[in-house]
């Protein structure tokens, strides 16, 4: 039995042959025991495969099952870029960003430049006293709790004009 005859038997078993040819094959299998044996073997094989084919069932409905797959596909697809919103501020954003940065810079420079005295004072609450007369001394007393600063100018050799009822408190 050649390969073409074997294929004829397979086609016969699958019902793919015209009726006349099918009758010839049937007659041939009745005459030829080898053909009959092969046909029987093919039938058994098909039956065995049909029984062992796994039958899978899905717990959800068909529509729900496929909708899940569809959602998953959409999720994995790269999101399409939506058209940018057109707004007044969006159009001005190019201007507002640098303008905001510039404003911040101006403010920093402004506050740095507006308090030059701060740089000269270690502590803004501590007075800086400068006597303009060579023979004059300055005595400073600070009452932090009341926010009061006393500066007393007096002749260098004479402290009697700094009358003190609390002399130990004078700096």
């Amino acid at each position: 039995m050649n390969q073409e005859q074997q294929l004829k038997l397979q086609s016969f078993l699958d019902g793919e042959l015209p009726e006349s040819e099918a009758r010839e094959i049937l007659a041939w299998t009745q005459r030829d025991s080898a053909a009959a044996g092969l046909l029987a073997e093919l039938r058994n094989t098909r039956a065995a495969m049909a029984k062992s084919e796994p039958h899978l069932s899905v717990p959800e409905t068909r529509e729900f099952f496929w909708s899940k797959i569809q959602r998953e596909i959409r999720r994995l697809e790269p999101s399409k870029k939506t058209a940018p919103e057109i707004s007044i501020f969006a159009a001005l954003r190019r201007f507002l960003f640098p303008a905001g940065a510039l404003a911040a810079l101006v403010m920093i420079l402004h506050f740095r430049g507006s308090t030059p005295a701060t740089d000269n004072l270690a502590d803004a609450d501590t007075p800086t006293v400068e006597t303009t007369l060579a023979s004059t001394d300055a005595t400073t007393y600070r009452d932090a709790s009341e926010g009061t600063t006393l500066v007393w100018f007096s002749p260098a050799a004479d402290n009697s004009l700094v009358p003190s009822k609390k002399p130990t408190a004078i700096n």
Partner: protein
Amino acid sequence: MSTKFFSPTRLVCAALFFLLIAGATARAADLALEADLVSGSNDPQAKGTPVSPQIEKKLGRLPLKWQHYFVVNSQQFSVANGESKDVSLSDACQISVKNLGGEQVQLTLMSSGQNVGKIKQSLKKGQTLVAGGNAGNSIVVLRQAD
């Protein structure tokens, strides 16, 4: 066309502009000050208007020999940032106040036209600068005007 008026970017930009305007406004603000020429005495019945209780309390805590203080002259004035103001409190006592910005002042004390000394000091609301010297029982009290 859709508009979002309160996005973070816009709020930040708006805040920066407001701060810039506020900063410019603050810089332009004058410093309102009050300078008092005060005489000290141990006589409670001395001639003159007593200083306010607030000032009396402050002066009472200072190492001065007097118990009571009276206002001889009081001047209210304002000084623009970076500017100076000359104030005559009496024939013998003059002061010059410069606004250094940031609520800091430079007080120049003059006695009969002679420069005695300069004091740089922060003078925030509630703070008081008291200066005195060889002028008998007179002292200068400088503070921000109420």
